[in-house]
Protein backbone atom coordinates (compact mmCIF):
# COMPACT_ATOMS: atom_id res chain seq x y z
CA UNK A 1 0.00 0.00 0.00
CA UNK A 2 1.18 3.49 -0.77
CA UNK A 3 -0.29 6.96 -0.58
CA UNK A 4 -0.85 8.20 -4.14
CA UNK A 5 -1.81 11.84 -4.62
CA UNK A 6 -3.17 13.37 -7.78
CA UNK A 7 -5.56 16.09 -8.98
CA UNK A 8 -8.91 14.47 -9.66
CA UNK A 9 -11.52 16.61 -11.41
CA UNK A 10 -9.76 19.71 -10.16
CA UNK A 11 -9.45 18.58 -6.52
CA UNK A 12 -6.36 17.31 -4.74
CA UNK A 13 -6.93 13.64 -3.90
CA UNK A 14 -4.94 11.06 -1.97
CA UNK A 15 -5.62 7.32 -1.83
CA UNK A 16 -3.79 4.57 0.06
CA UNK A 17 -3.67 1.72 -2.46
CA UNK A 18 -1.45 -0.83 -4.16
CA UNK A 19 0.49 1.28 -6.74
CA UNK A 20 -0.22 -1.38 -9.37
CA UNK A 21 -3.99 -1.19 -8.89
CA UNK A 22 -5.66 -0.05 -12.12
CA UNK A 23 -6.85 3.55 -12.00
CA UNK A 24 -10.33 2.35 -13.03
CA UNK A 25 -10.77 0.39 -9.82
CA UNK A 26 -9.32 3.17 -7.69
CA UNK A 27 -11.90 5.51 -9.19
CA UNK A 28 -14.81 3.10 -8.81
CA UNK A 29 -13.97 1.28 -5.57
CA UNK A 30 -11.87 3.70 -3.54
CA UNK A 31 -13.31 7.01 -4.71
CA UNK A 32 -16.89 5.95 -5.58
CA UNK A 33 -16.80 7.58 -9.00
CA UNK A 34 -18.75 4.98 -10.97
CA UNK A 35 -19.31 6.95 -14.15
CA UNK A 36 -16.22 5.34 -15.64
CA UNK A 37 -17.12 1.81 -16.75
CA UNK A 38 -15.38 -1.54 -16.88
CA UNK A 39 -15.69 -3.07 -20.33
CA UNK A 40 -12.97 -5.42 -21.55
CA UNK A 41 -10.21 -4.86 -19.00
CA UNK A 42 -7.57 -4.95 -21.74
CA UNK A 43 -7.67 -1.50 -23.37
CA UNK A 44 -9.67 -2.60 -26.36
CA UNK A 45 -13.21 -1.23 -25.93
CA UNK A 46 -12.67 2.29 -24.56
CA UNK A 47 -15.44 2.17 -21.90
CA UNK A 48 -12.95 3.13 -19.18
CA UNK A 49 -11.53 6.21 -20.93
CA UNK A 50 -10.55 9.11 -18.67
CA UNK A 51 -8.15 12.00 -19.17
CA UNK A 52 -4.62 12.09 -17.84
CA UNK A 53 -3.17 15.54 -18.44
CA UNK A 54 -5.65 15.82 -21.31
CA UNK A 55 -4.78 12.48 -22.95
CA UNK A 56 -7.60 9.94 -23.29
CA UNK A 57 -6.09 7.01 -21.40
CA UNK A 58 -7.61 3.60 -20.74
CA UNK A 59 -7.96 3.48 -16.97
CA UNK A 60 -8.49 -0.32 -16.87
CA UNK A 61 -4.81 -0.95 -17.73
CA UNK A 62 -3.26 2.14 -16.18
CA UNK A 63 -1.54 1.52 -12.85
CA UNK A 64 -2.55 4.26 -10.43
CA UNK A 65 1.16 4.94 -9.83
CA UNK A 66 1.27 6.49 -13.32
CA UNK A 67 -1.08 9.33 -12.34
CA UNK A 68 0.78 10.35 -9.19
CA UNK A 69 1.12 14.14 -9.12
CA UNK A 70 -0.84 14.49 -12.34
CA UNK A 71 -4.24 15.79 -13.41
CA UNK A 72 -7.02 13.25 -13.99
CA UNK A 73 -10.47 14.10 -15.35
CA UNK A 74 -13.37 11.65 -15.36
CA UNK A 75 -16.84 11.94 -16.86
CA UNK A 76 -17.96 13.41 -13.53
CA UNK A 77 -15.43 16.21 -13.97
CA UNK A 78 -16.61 17.54 -17.33
CA UNK A 79 -19.03 19.88 -15.57
CA UNK A 80 -21.17 19.96 -12.45
CA UNK A 81 -24.28 21.11 -14.27
CA UNK A 82 -24.23 19.16 -17.57
CA UNK A 83 -23.18 22.34 -19.36
CA UNK A 84 -20.11 20.97 -21.12
CA UNK A 85 -20.62 21.21 -24.90
CA UNK A 86 -20.19 17.44 -25.26
CA UNK A 87 -22.75 16.75 -22.52
CA UNK A 88 -25.20 19.18 -24.10
CA UNK A 89 -24.70 17.70 -27.55
CA UNK A 90 -25.11 14.15 -26.25
CA UNK A 91 -28.44 15.10 -24.68
CA UNK A 92 -29.57 17.05 -27.73
CA UNK A 93 -28.85 14.18 -30.12
CA UNK A 94 -29.97 11.54 -27.56
CA UNK A 95 -26.89 9.50 -28.37
CA UNK A 96 -27.05 6.60 -25.88
CA UNK A 97 -29.05 3.44 -26.28
CA UNK A 98 -27.98 1.21 -23.38
CA UNK A 99 -25.44 3.88 -22.42
CA UNK A 100 -22.73 1.63 -21.04
CA UNK A 101 -19.95 2.83 -23.36
CA UNK A 102 -21.02 6.45 -23.45
CA UNK A 103 -18.83 7.94 -20.73
CA UNK A 104 -15.83 6.57 -22.60
CA UNK A 105 -17.19 7.85 -25.90
CA UNK A 106 -17.66 11.30 -24.42
CA UNK A 107 -14.20 11.46 -22.89
CA UNK A 108 -12.63 10.53 -26.23
CA UNK A 109 -14.84 13.09 -27.97
CA UNK A 110 -13.68 15.82 -25.55
CA UNK A 111 -10.07 14.86 -26.21
CA UNK A 112 -10.66 15.09 -29.96
CA UNK A 113 -12.36 18.47 -29.72
CA UNK A 114 -9.64 19.89 -27.49
CA UNK A 115 -7.10 19.02 -30.16
CA UNK A 116 -9.29 19.68 -33.18
CA UNK A 117 -12.18 22.09 -32.51
CA UNK A 118 -13.75 21.52 -35.93
CA UNK A 119 -13.23 17.85 -36.85
CA UNK A 120 -14.32 16.35 -40.14
CA UNK A 121 -16.12 13.02 -40.37
CA UNK A 122 -12.76 11.44 -41.20
CA UNK A 123 -11.13 13.03 -38.13
CA UNK A 124 -13.96 11.68 -35.99
CA UNK A 125 -13.64 8.18 -37.47
CA UNK A 126 -9.91 8.18 -36.73
CA UNK A 127 -10.22 9.49 -33.19
CA UNK A 128 -13.25 7.48 -32.10
CA UNK A 129 -12.42 4.09 -33.62
CA UNK A 130 -11.08 2.91 -30.27
CA UNK A 131 -14.45 3.32 -28.55
CA UNK A 132 -16.71 0.37 -29.27
CA UNK A 133 -20.51 0.49 -28.96
CA UNK A 134 -22.46 -2.77 -29.03
CA UNK A 135 -25.67 -0.81 -29.65
CA UNK A 136 -24.21 0.77 -32.77
CA UNK A 137 -24.69 4.41 -31.86
CA UNK A 138 -21.74 5.46 -34.01
CA UNK A 139 -23.70 7.76 -36.32
CA UNK A 140 -25.27 9.57 -33.38
CA UNK A 141 -21.84 9.86 -31.75
CA UNK A 142 -20.52 11.45 -34.93
CA UNK A 143 -23.47 13.83 -35.19
CA UNK A 144 -23.15 14.81 -31.54
CA UNK A 145 -19.47 15.61 -31.95
CA UNK A 146 -20.33 18.01 -34.78
CA UNK A 147 -23.02 19.58 -32.57
CA UNK A 148 -20.59 19.83 -29.63
CA UNK A 149 -18.06 21.50 -31.90
CA UNK A 150 -20.67 24.08 -32.90
CA UNK A 151 -21.71 24.70 -29.28
CA UNK A 152 -18.09 25.09 -28.21
CA UNK A 153 -17.36 27.41 -31.11
CA UNK A 154 -20.18 29.69 -29.99
CA UNK A 155 -18.92 29.67 -26.43
CA UNK A 156 -15.23 29.58 -27.24
CA UNK A 157 -14.54 26.71 -24.82
CA UNK A 158 -14.29 22.95 -24.80
CA UNK A 159 -12.93 21.66 -21.48
Amino acid at each position, binding site marked *: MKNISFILNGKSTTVAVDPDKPLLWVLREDLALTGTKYGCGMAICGCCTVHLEGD*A*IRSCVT*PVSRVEGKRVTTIEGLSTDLSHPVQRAWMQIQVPQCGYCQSGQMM*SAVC*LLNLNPKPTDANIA*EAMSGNLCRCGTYQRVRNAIHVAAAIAAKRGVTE
Partner: protein
Amino acid sequence: MKLIAPIIIGFASIALGWYAFAQSAPLGVRDDDAARAAFTVAYRVFESPRCMNCHPAGNTPLQGDDSHPHFDYVLRGEDGNGISALRCSNCHQAGNGAGLNMPPGAPNVMSDGSFDPTTPRWHLPSAKTPMIFEGRSTAQLCRQLQDPTQNGGLSRDQLIHHVASDPLVLWGWSPGEGRTTPPISHEQFVALVKEWLDNGGACPK
Protein backbone atom coordinates in the same frame (compact mmCIF):
# COMPACT_ATOMS: atom_id res chain seq x y z
CA MET B 1 19.95 26.78 -62.92
CA LYS B 2 16.92 27.04 -60.63
CA LEU B 3 16.46 23.28 -60.95
CA ILE B 4 20.13 22.32 -60.73
CA ALA B 5 20.90 24.12 -57.46
CA PRO B 6 18.48 22.13 -55.28
CA ILE B 7 19.70 18.88 -56.87
CA ILE B 8 23.33 19.75 -56.11
CA ILE B 9 22.43 20.75 -52.54
CA GLY B 10 20.47 17.50 -52.12
CA PHE B 11 23.33 15.31 -53.28
CA ALA B 12 25.78 17.29 -51.15
CA SER B 13 23.60 16.81 -48.06
CA ILE B 14 23.39 13.07 -48.60
CA ALA B 15 27.13 12.83 -49.22
CA LEU B 16 27.89 14.83 -46.06
CA GLY B 17 25.54 12.63 -44.04
CA TRP B 18 27.25 9.46 -45.23
CA TYR B 19 30.65 11.03 -44.62
CA ALA B 20 29.69 11.97 -41.05
CA PHE B 21 28.34 8.46 -40.38
CA ALA B 22 31.49 6.85 -41.79
CA GLN B 23 33.84 9.19 -39.91
CA SER B 24 32.31 8.16 -36.58
CA ALA B 25 33.45 4.56 -37.14
CA PRO B 26 36.63 3.42 -35.38
CA LEU B 27 39.76 2.98 -37.44
CA GLY B 28 40.19 -0.61 -38.44
CA VAL B 29 40.59 -3.02 -41.26
CA ARG B 30 37.64 -2.95 -43.60
CA ASP B 31 36.28 -6.43 -44.15
CA ASP B 32 33.31 -6.32 -46.47
CA ASP B 33 32.60 -10.05 -46.30
CA ALA B 34 32.56 -10.02 -42.48
CA ALA B 35 30.36 -6.92 -42.45
CA ARG B 36 27.88 -8.43 -44.90
CA ALA B 37 27.79 -11.73 -43.00
CA ALA B 38 27.13 -9.96 -39.69
CA PHE B 39 24.38 -7.80 -41.11
CA THR B 40 22.69 -10.74 -42.82
CA VAL B 41 22.20 -12.41 -39.43
CA ALA B 42 21.24 -9.16 -37.65
CA TYR B 43 18.68 -8.55 -40.41
CA ARG B 44 16.66 -11.50 -39.11
CA VAL B 45 16.15 -9.51 -35.90
CA PHE B 46 15.21 -6.29 -37.68
CA GLU B 47 12.63 -8.20 -39.70
CA SER B 48 11.24 -10.14 -36.72
CA PRO B 49 7.72 -9.16 -35.64
CA ARG B 50 9.01 -7.61 -32.41
CA CYS B 51 11.02 -5.03 -34.38
CA MET B 52 9.15 -4.80 -37.68
CA ASN B 53 5.69 -4.34 -36.15
CA CYS B 54 6.67 -0.83 -35.07
CA HIS B 55 8.52 -0.12 -38.32
CA PRO B 56 5.65 -0.72 -40.77
CA ALA B 57 5.48 0.28 -44.41
CA GLY B 58 2.17 2.06 -43.85
CA ASN B 59 0.92 4.38 -41.15
CA THR B 60 -0.74 1.69 -39.04
CA PRO B 61 1.38 -0.27 -36.56
CA LEU B 62 1.34 -4.04 -36.84
CA GLN B 63 0.78 -6.55 -34.07
CA GLY B 64 1.12 -10.22 -33.33
CA ASP B 65 3.55 -12.78 -34.63
CA ASP B 66 1.67 -12.66 -37.96
CA SER B 67 2.17 -8.87 -38.13
CA HIS B 68 -1.46 -8.04 -38.80
CA PRO B 69 -2.61 -4.39 -38.69
CA HIS B 70 -3.21 -3.01 -35.20
CA PHE B 71 -6.87 -3.27 -34.17
CA ASP B 72 -9.04 -0.15 -34.35
CA TYR B 73 -7.92 2.67 -36.60
CA VAL B 74 -4.60 3.25 -34.85
CA LEU B 75 -2.36 5.58 -36.84
CA ARG B 76 1.24 6.78 -36.64
CA GLY B 77 0.50 10.52 -36.37
CA GLU B 78 3.04 13.21 -37.20
CA ASP B 79 5.22 12.56 -34.16
CA GLY B 80 4.84 8.78 -34.22
CA ASN B 81 2.86 8.78 -30.98
CA GLY B 82 -0.56 8.22 -32.51
CA ILE B 83 -3.39 10.68 -32.90
CA SER B 84 -6.03 12.35 -30.76
CA ALA B 85 -7.79 9.84 -28.47
CA LEU B 86 -5.62 7.01 -29.83
CA ARG B 87 -2.15 7.98 -28.68
CA CYS B 88 0.09 4.95 -28.15
CA SER B 89 0.63 5.62 -24.45
CA ASN B 90 -3.10 5.89 -23.85
CA CYS B 91 -3.11 2.09 -23.67
CA HIS B 92 0.55 1.05 -23.54
CA GLN B 93 2.12 1.41 -20.12
CA ALA B 94 5.65 1.45 -18.72
CA GLY B 95 5.63 -2.35 -18.63
CA ASN B 96 3.80 -5.30 -20.15
CA GLY B 97 0.26 -5.91 -18.97
CA ALA B 98 -0.06 -9.21 -17.11
CA GLY B 99 -1.66 -12.01 -19.10
CA LEU B 100 -2.27 -13.12 -22.67
CA ASN B 101 -3.13 -10.40 -25.23
CA MET B 102 -2.67 -7.57 -22.75
CA PRO B 103 -1.06 -4.39 -24.11
CA PRO B 104 2.74 -4.57 -24.14
CA GLY B 105 4.70 -1.68 -22.66
CA ALA B 106 8.14 -0.24 -21.99
CA PRO B 107 9.48 2.48 -19.68
CA ASN B 108 10.52 5.95 -20.69
CA VAL B 109 14.13 7.07 -20.27
CA MET B 110 14.88 9.82 -17.74
CA SER B 111 17.45 12.56 -18.25
CA ASP B 112 20.08 10.60 -16.31
CA GLY B 113 19.61 7.60 -18.60
CA SER B 114 17.71 5.47 -16.09
CA PHE B 115 14.29 4.04 -16.85
CA ASP B 116 11.14 5.62 -15.39
CA PRO B 117 8.93 2.75 -14.17
CA THR B 118 5.77 4.87 -14.22
CA THR B 119 6.00 6.64 -17.59
CA PRO B 120 5.49 4.71 -20.83
CA ARG B 121 7.64 4.90 -23.94
CA TRP B 122 5.73 3.41 -26.83
CA HIS B 123 5.67 4.89 -30.31
CA LEU B 124 6.47 4.47 -33.98
CA PRO B 125 9.11 6.46 -35.82
CA SER B 126 7.79 9.88 -36.85
CA ALA B 127 5.99 10.48 -40.12
CA LYS B 128 8.94 12.55 -41.32
CA THR B 129 11.40 9.67 -40.78
CA PRO B 130 9.28 6.51 -40.79
CA MET B 131 12.24 4.10 -40.68
CA ILE B 132 10.40 1.40 -42.59
CA PHE B 133 11.62 -2.16 -42.02
CA GLU B 134 8.61 -3.96 -43.49
CA GLY B 135 9.39 -5.29 -46.96
CA ARG B 136 12.97 -4.04 -47.03
CA SER B 137 15.58 -6.38 -48.50
CA THR B 138 18.84 -6.91 -46.62
CA ALA B 139 20.61 -4.49 -48.95
CA GLN B 140 17.89 -1.83 -48.70
CA LEU B 141 17.72 -1.97 -44.91
CA CYS B 142 21.50 -2.02 -44.60
CA ARG B 143 21.78 1.21 -46.60
CA GLN B 144 18.82 2.83 -44.85
CA LEU B 145 20.22 2.23 -41.37
CA GLN B 146 23.46 4.01 -42.28
CA ASP B 147 21.82 6.95 -44.02
CA PRO B 148 21.32 9.80 -41.51
CA THR B 149 18.59 11.25 -43.72
CA GLN B 150 16.63 8.03 -43.25
CA ASN B 151 17.70 6.83 -39.80
CA GLY B 152 16.61 9.82 -37.76
CA GLY B 153 20.01 11.47 -37.95
CA LEU B 154 21.73 8.76 -35.93
CA SER B 155 25.51 8.52 -36.00
CA ARG B 156 27.21 5.15 -35.87
CA ASP B 157 27.57 5.36 -32.08
CA GLN B 158 24.00 6.51 -31.63
CA LEU B 159 22.77 3.63 -33.78
CA ILE B 160 24.69 1.16 -31.61
CA HIS B 161 23.37 2.87 -28.47
CA HIS B 162 19.83 2.58 -29.83
CA VAL B 163 20.03 -1.16 -30.47
CA ALA B 164 21.91 -1.75 -27.20
CA SER B 165 19.95 0.41 -24.77
CA ASP B 166 16.63 1.73 -26.04
CA PRO B 167 13.83 0.34 -23.85
CA LEU B 168 11.74 -0.33 -26.95
CA VAL B 169 14.51 -2.48 -28.44
CA LEU B 170 15.13 -4.27 -25.14
CA TRP B 171 11.40 -4.96 -24.92
CA GLY B 172 11.74 -7.21 -27.98
CA TRP B 173 13.42 -9.80 -25.79
CA SER B 174 10.85 -9.57 -22.99
CA PRO B 175 7.68 -8.96 -24.98
CA GLY B 176 5.13 -10.40 -22.59
CA GLU B 177 2.97 -13.48 -22.75
CA GLY B 178 2.04 -14.85 -26.18
CA ARG B 179 4.71 -13.09 -28.22
CA THR B 180 7.84 -14.74 -29.61
CA THR B 181 11.27 -13.18 -29.20
CA PRO B 182 13.72 -12.45 -32.05
CA PRO B 183 15.70 -15.43 -33.36
CA ILE B 184 18.97 -14.60 -31.54
CA SER B 185 19.76 -13.10 -28.15
CA HIS B 186 19.99 -9.36 -27.61
CA GLU B 187 23.69 -9.67 -26.78
CA GLN B 188 24.33 -11.53 -30.05
CA PHE B 189 22.31 -8.94 -31.95
CA VAL B 190 24.25 -5.97 -30.54
CA ALA B 191 27.55 -7.76 -31.17
CA LEU B 192 26.55 -8.37 -34.80
CA VAL B 193 25.55 -4.74 -35.36
CA LYS B 194 28.91 -3.62 -33.96
CA GLU B 195 30.74 -6.21 -36.04
CA TRP B 196 28.94 -5.03 -39.16
CA LEU B 197 29.81 -1.37 -38.55
CA ASP B 198 33.35 -2.00 -37.23
CA ASN B 199 34.12 -3.85 -40.43
CA GLY B 200 33.05 -0.92 -42.55
CA GLY B 201 29.28 -1.42 -42.81
CA ALA B 202 29.29 -3.01 -46.25
CA CYS B 203 25.84 -4.01 -47.46
CA PRO B 204 24.73 -7.32 -48.98
CA LYS B 205 24.39 -7.15 -52.74
